[in-house]
């Protein structure tokens, strides 16, 4: 048989490639880092990817002012330091920042409420990009709207930079309750729900049929210990983002390794006990009740 030497490339940046990339992250821990040294610590600890930032969320929260995309030079230095995927954040609705990050070649863009929103009306039209996006959500409506816009992965918003898991738990429970409710609806009800959520009926039907989000779903916002990660994994998320929790602890390498193991063996209390012993001091954290409404990042971009 005569074999052709040049096969034809079918496509770049397809939905399957974008969602497929997210699937490769499942069961893993994605860690926030601000420099190449931290990125290498994360990679050595077994992180599946890193989120390259100029400042971690707890410092962004403390600094105030307008929080923007990181300096591309900072992101690039991190991309050059590790072999695992590198993600970076753009402001909600800021397609200009997203274009910069795509041109730079980051592996995934997080359209994030941790940065100051750039558009109060629209999120980025993510279907126009070849690079996949992850977006935050507090409930099913937000999640499906982001998927409708082209997000390839969803994460809870939690309350970033607080080291407090309570808000992420709220978002997981609410989303799962709403999925169960959706799954119980007949055709007319699904149509009405899709309208209420402002998403296509097809997407509502797909979610009802799968009885889960049709893309990979991670927990983010407030994970500070291995037990935090194990708990949310038991709640049914596919993996975790850890922001301030690692590099605000007193021994980041150990905390990172412990969270990676706890995420893998989330259903094994024996392993969890082992990795939880003599842990470095976790970040101090913030009681959500002490935050004013306008200080909560999660209400940004619904």
């Amino acid at each position, binding site marked *: 048989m005569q074999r052709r030497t040049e*096969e034809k*490339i079918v496509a770049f940046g397809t939905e399957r490639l974008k969602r*497929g990339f997210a699937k490769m992250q499942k*069961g893993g821990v994605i860690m926030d880092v601000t420099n190449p040294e931290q990125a290498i610590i994360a990679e050595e600890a*077994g992180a599946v990817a890193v989120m390259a930032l100029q400042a971690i969320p707890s410092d962004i929260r403390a600094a105030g002012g307008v929080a923007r995309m990181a300096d591309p030079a900072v992101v690039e230095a991190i991309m050059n330091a590790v072999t695992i*995927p590198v993600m970076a954040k753009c402001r909600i609705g800021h397609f200009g920042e997203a274009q910069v990050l795509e041109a730079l070649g980051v592996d995934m863009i997080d359209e994030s409420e941790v940065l100051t929103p750039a558009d109060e009306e629209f999120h980025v039209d993510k279907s126009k990009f070849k690079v996949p996006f992850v977006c935050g959500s507090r409930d099913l409506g937000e999640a499906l709207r982001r998927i409708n816009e082209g997000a390839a992965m969803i994460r809870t918003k939690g309350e970033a930079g607080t080291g407090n898991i309570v808000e992420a738990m709220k978002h997981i429970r609410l989303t799962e309750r709403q999925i169960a409710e959706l799954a119980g609806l007949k055709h007319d009800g699904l149509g009405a729900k899709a309208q209420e959520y402002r998403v296509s009926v097809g997407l509502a039907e797909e979610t009802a049929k799968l009885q889960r989000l049709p893309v990979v779903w991670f927990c983010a916002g407030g994970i500070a210990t291995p037990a935090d990660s194990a708990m949310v994994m038991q709640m049914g998320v596919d993996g975790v983002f850890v922001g301030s929790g690692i590099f605000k602890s007193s021994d980041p390498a150990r905390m990172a390794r412990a969270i990676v*193991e706890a995420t*893998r063996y989330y259903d094994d209390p024996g392993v969890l006990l082992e990795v939880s012993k003599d842990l470095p001091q976790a970040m101090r954290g913030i009681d959500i009740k002490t935050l004013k409404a306008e200080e909560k990042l999660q209400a940004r971009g619904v």
Partner: protein
Amino acid sequence: MKIGIVGLQGAVSEHLEATERAMQKLGIKGEAVWVGRPVQLEGVDGIIIPGGESTTIGKLMRTTGLFEQVKQLATGGKPILGTCAGLIVLAKRGDEQVMRTRQPLLGLMDISVIRNAFGRQRESFEVNLEIPALGEEPFSAVFIRAPAVEEVWGDAKTLAEFQGKIVAVQQGSLLAVAFHPELTPDTRLHEYFLRMCQR
């Protein structure tokens, strides 16, 4: 038949489903099981090491003891399929990127691998790939930050190439591909592997 899917991280559930679909197609009675510990490999007829992050999977295989167990079973002739990250883990040699991360390699196949051989996620692609071993119909192959095989020697045989890079290799009972057969409906690669497990 029982196929164990190394379930430490990555596209595990997709391989479970693809394997069971392939079993149905071939009329094989059996199951695919999630393997997180060495004891769960008891009685398996074949093992799949899925895609994910190879550094993470390699490191977790070490801490769980799966590394030694899989190596021992493979040496005894147990068929193994590695996809994407799984291909890297099966290799004898890695490039500078693989060595830098000090990721453990099982070193079972006479191949050297290049990590992220086609570039970053932006350069990930889908292609209709000719794999003569699977028949004339091209295979819809999904490459995600995929590795490639730089060199094969010894008993390793090239099954498919793309743009001059080797992307599928077989060495006796070991099969490795750089793409993700678990992400497409075509089950021919899983069927091919299951037939290897039947022998």
